[in-house]
């Protein structure tokens, strides 16, 4: 399996995977979705009862227009910056054996008094400051002038096999590498194929039908259908693929890819070991 990197931005990647087959690319795809771990908020403690403010001499209700469960769910969805070298799974942590420690958990506090909108950026990590949520403008809930929110939230590592909030990637998809054959002798340059293509793959240049954007082709075959002389043949290669994915910002796409390939290699090593012992 060869991987050629086309785009590798923070939150977006496009790869050309060649010398392989569909099951292998799909294995990589599924590892990127369900096996690469990241941090997400798992435990939340809500302060109940009134929240006093000594400065203003005013008491706030610890209630919000949304149910606590919904706020908890929204908090769980937030992307939390993840350093896979630093963090361990909580239940496999050597330091604390599941109690929770700086090696396996991040604790956030949120303390807001209404009237206001509570944003993801209002979550303050206890201790370290570079671990604020990746996006700070995600609205969580709104409070009126009698309401306040005091929350302690604990983030830990997990994988999307347990819950989708631990999924570092989205839009992970691959397609066959397109092959478009044009029979220039029978092509009559009517231009109907150029018109019909929704992705502007084909073009006519210097009295010749050319392929302007091969990788944009998504196999709709409209060009084949409208071509009266039948000069176009669209097919996909079964040994070369275009793999694209995005990340939610917890990890960069490079980190996700490296970790994913490592995990995939581990799985294959395991199978090889098992097959030897048969």
């Amino acid at each position, binding site marked *: 399996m060869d991987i050629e990197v086309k785009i590798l931005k923070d939150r977006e990647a496009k790869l050309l995977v060649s010398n392989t087959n569909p099951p292998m690319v799909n294995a990589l795809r599924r590892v990127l979705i369900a096996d690469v771990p990241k941090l997400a908020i798992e435990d939340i403690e809500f302060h109940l009862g009134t929240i006093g403010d000594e400065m203003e001499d005013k008491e706030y209700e610890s209630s919000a*227009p*949304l149910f606590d469960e919904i706020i908890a769910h*929204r908090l769980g*969805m*937030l*992307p939390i910056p993840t350093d896979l070298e630093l963090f361990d799974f909580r239940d496999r942590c050597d330091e604390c054996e599941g109690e929770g420690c700086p090696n396996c958990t991040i604790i956030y506090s949120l303390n807001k008094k209404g009237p206001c909108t509570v944003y*993801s950026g209002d979550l303050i990590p206890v201790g370290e400051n570079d671990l604020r949520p990746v*996006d700070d*403008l*995600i*609205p*969580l*809930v*709104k409070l*009126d002038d009698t309401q306040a929110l005091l929350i302690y939230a604990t983030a830990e590592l997990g994988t999307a096999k347990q819950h*989708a909030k631990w*999924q570092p990637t*989205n*839009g992970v998809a691959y397609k066959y590498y397109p092959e478009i054959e044009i029979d220039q002798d029978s092509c009559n340059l009517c231009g109907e194929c150029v018109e019909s293509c929704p992705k502007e793959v084909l073009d006519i240049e210097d009295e010749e039908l050319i392929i302007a954007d091969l990788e944009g082709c998504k196999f709709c075959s409209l060009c084949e259908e409208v071509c009266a002389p039948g000069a176009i043949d669209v097919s996909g290669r079964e040994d070369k693929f275009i793999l694209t994915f*995005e990340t*939610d*910002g917890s990890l960069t796409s490079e980190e996700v890819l490296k970790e994913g390939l490592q995990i995939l290699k581990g799985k294959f090593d395991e199978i090889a070991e098992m097959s030897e012992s048969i």
Partner: protein
Amino acid sequence: MMIPVRCFTCGKVIGNVYEVYKDRLEQGEDPGEVLDDLGIDRYCCRRMFLSHQDLIDDVMKY
């Protein structure tokens, strides 16, 4: 109610651009163009914005 944090279908984080989207719409910009600009490309994510109603202010009273 409140804008969902993520797209229901693909899981992309969309809540982070909602405030910008709302502001630009109030200034009379075209929703489609604003979404293109903000990188909300897939139609699953776009419908999250187009079908959203901010009801939180109505619910707040109760």
